[in-house]
């Protein structure tokens, strides 16, 4: 069973990370005056630094704890997430990153508004950005609260959520993008080292023999939900998903979602030029790929070393990786892996907060309300700081209201579905399709957002009849047989988003949008007129 007492090593490591990140914030705060410094770290982040930061922003608690747990409990199907999360970066690298860096300034909407009517497009893009970020953030905060509750039982869920919330507000409000970037870099290094160590421990358990490792996966015995003893080959597909369309729908949301995630896209504004944006994606792909290949060892490793029964009794799937660390490496290593998971959550919520508050300040406040004029210098940054504070406070409140056992895993899936269905069509068409116009962008943002949320409400992630044994707070939100049969809305909502973009465009005329396409395409492909790095 779990230690009932607080683990002093874990506290020391937590505190160490928190102190290090506060020092970073203190030094960043001195440099983060002015919009470009606050929102884009002065565009002076180097390729490898931004690569680590992109990886740090991307490898969330859902990746580290969630995928490890999913593989440990559902075998091969969980590994499909790992694959999709990396392949998605080809869309980022080949299609989105460089044009975005060349044509935009602070937010995803900069590219959409370039040749379209800025106010409707920015208002909806800000809405989509804030929706994606907030959903994603609540999932992370509930995860953080549950983790701290297990690791430091004296602290309690509410206090843990408040702690995470306050720290992230401090990073973002005082340190801006520069502090957030360095928090990601430190976290990415910690997460990579923790994962390598854990993988090596797993392989040493199997005497560094891959065939012994894989052989152990072929017959794992455990008790299923009805209590019957079953033996399964964990490398066989289909333990989680029974319908082949589930595989397709999930794969679509993963591979097309990443290139529409606002908190990933804004990272490309922190580097000096498109060429550095490209090299940062390559760095990120190397790290992210190695990380997700390692989920083989700590995901499947947890299944065979601990077994699903043990994981079920000891904190569930999300605690599979930390429990594996405890069994193989003892209490100190358990504390280290838990501190890494906590650092991961903290860094990701900071990244989400800054992208949400930048979008509100730059897109909504300055451009929609004040028609693109900053009335007083520094106003945009001040609004962003206030927004970060509000976003943090709202997320703390929602995470506390939902409680530690809330079933929130679907929120990450939803974020990817919205990003792929609403944001990606608008981004791709505005860069590559001359005829594309405001009606098309508005249609894709609205239809993508509404379809993703609507379909997920009708899907088994929200609509399921739970057996009476399930605890009240962990129940599905709607106790009804699902109307939409698949877990992920992607297979319907992504084509709908693209279709809406095409129909909206073809059914309206806007010569002004096509007229500035030359300017956008030259700028996107040559970097002429792109935002420059600021001097030190």
């Amino acid at each position, binding site marked *: 069973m779990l230690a009932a007492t607080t683990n002093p090593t874990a506290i020391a490591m937590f505190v160490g990370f928190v102190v290090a990140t506060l020092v970073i914030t203190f030094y960043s705060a001195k440099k983060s005056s002015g919009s470009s410094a606050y929102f884009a770290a002065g565009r002076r982040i180097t390729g490898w630094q931004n690569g680590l930061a992109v990886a740090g922003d991307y490898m969330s608690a859902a990746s580290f704890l969630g995928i490890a747990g999913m593989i440990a409990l559902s075998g*091969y199907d969980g*590994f*499909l997430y*790992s*694959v*999709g999360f*990396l*392949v998605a*970066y*080809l869309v980022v*690298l*080949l*299609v989105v990153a460089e044009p975005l860096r060349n044509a935009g300034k602070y937010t995803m909407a900069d590219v959409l*508004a*370039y*040749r*379209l*009517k*800025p*106010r409707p497009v920015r208002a909806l893009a800000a809405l989509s950005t804030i929706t994606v970020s907030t959903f994603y953030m609540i999932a992370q905060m509930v995860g953080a609260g549950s983790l701290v509750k297990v690791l430091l039982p004296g602290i309690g869920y509410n206090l843990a959520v408040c702690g995470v919330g306050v720290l992230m507000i401090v990073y973002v409000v005082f340190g801006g993008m520069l502090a957030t970037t360095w928090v990601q870099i430190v976290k990415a290094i910690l997460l990579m080292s923790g994962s390598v160590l854990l993988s090596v421990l797993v392989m040493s358990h199997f005497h560094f023999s*891959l*065939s012994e490792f*894989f*052989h152990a996966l072929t017959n794992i015995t455990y008790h299923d939900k009805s209590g019957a003893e079953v033996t399964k080959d964990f*490398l*066989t*597909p*289909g333990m989680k998903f029974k*319908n*082949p*369309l589930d*595989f*397709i729908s*999930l*794969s679509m949301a993963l*591979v097309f979602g990443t290139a529409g995630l606002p908190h990933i896209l804004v990272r490309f504004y922190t580097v000096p030029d498109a*060429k550095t944006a*490209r*090299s940062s*994606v390559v760095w990120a*792909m190397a790290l992210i*790929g190695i990380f*997700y*290949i390692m989920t*083989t060892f700590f995901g499947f490793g947890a299944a065979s070393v601990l077994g699903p029964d043990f994981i079920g009794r000891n904190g569930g799937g999300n605690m599979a990786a930390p429990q594996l660390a405890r069994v193989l490496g003892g209490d100190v290593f358990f504390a280290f892996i838990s501190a890494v998971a906590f650092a991961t959550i903290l860094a990701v919520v900071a990244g989400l907060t800054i992208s949400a508050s930048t979008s509100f300040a730059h897109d909504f406040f300055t451009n929609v309300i004040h*028609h*693109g004029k900053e009335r007083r210098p520094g106003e945009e940054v001040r609004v962003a700081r206030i927004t970060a504070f509000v976003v943090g406070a709202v997320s703390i409140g929602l995470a506390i209201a939902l409680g530690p056992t809330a079933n929130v895993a679907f929120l990450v899936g939803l974020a990817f579905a919205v990003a792929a269905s609403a944001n990606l069509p608008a981004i791709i068409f505005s860069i590559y399709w001359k005829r594309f116009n405001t009606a098309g962008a508005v249609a894709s943002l609205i239809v993508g957002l509404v379809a993703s949320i609507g379909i997920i409400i009708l899907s088994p992630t929200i609509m399921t009849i739970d057996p009476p044994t399930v605890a009240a707070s962990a129940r599905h939100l709607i106790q009804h047989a699902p109307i939409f049969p698949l877990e992920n809305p992607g297979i319907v909502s992504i084509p709908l988003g693209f279709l809406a973009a095409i129909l909206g465009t073809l059914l309206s005329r806007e010569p*002004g949008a096509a*007229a*500035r396409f*030359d*300017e956008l*395409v*030259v*700028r996107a*492909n*040559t*970097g*002429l*007129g792109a935002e420059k790095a600021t001097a030190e």
Partner: protein
Amino acid sequence: MAPADDPKLPPVGQTDAPDWAGIAASPRFQELLRAKRRFIVPAMVFSILYYFALPVLVGWFPDLMKKKIGDGANLAYLFALSQFFMAWIVAGLYVAKAGAWDKAAARLLSESGER
């Protein structure tokens, strides 16, 4: 508000603004776009097909994918693992090509007097 009225951007046709339309229409720029398209479109199509082959195969042909290769993993795992290498190889090829596009872009800008 029409985009040309966007206060942050100079109006189209203003004299000190770059000649966007001129550059866009120039043969060098058109050749750059064609060169990019010649690589990016097939590379993206190939990657997407290769990627979606995985869910299609594990979804509809589970018996084939269960087949063990040697005494270690099965086809499903090895094909999933191959996706990582596919992504890295395509990214590597892209970066190798992109160096030449950077040079072409710099050359066409200096010829049109922008840099």
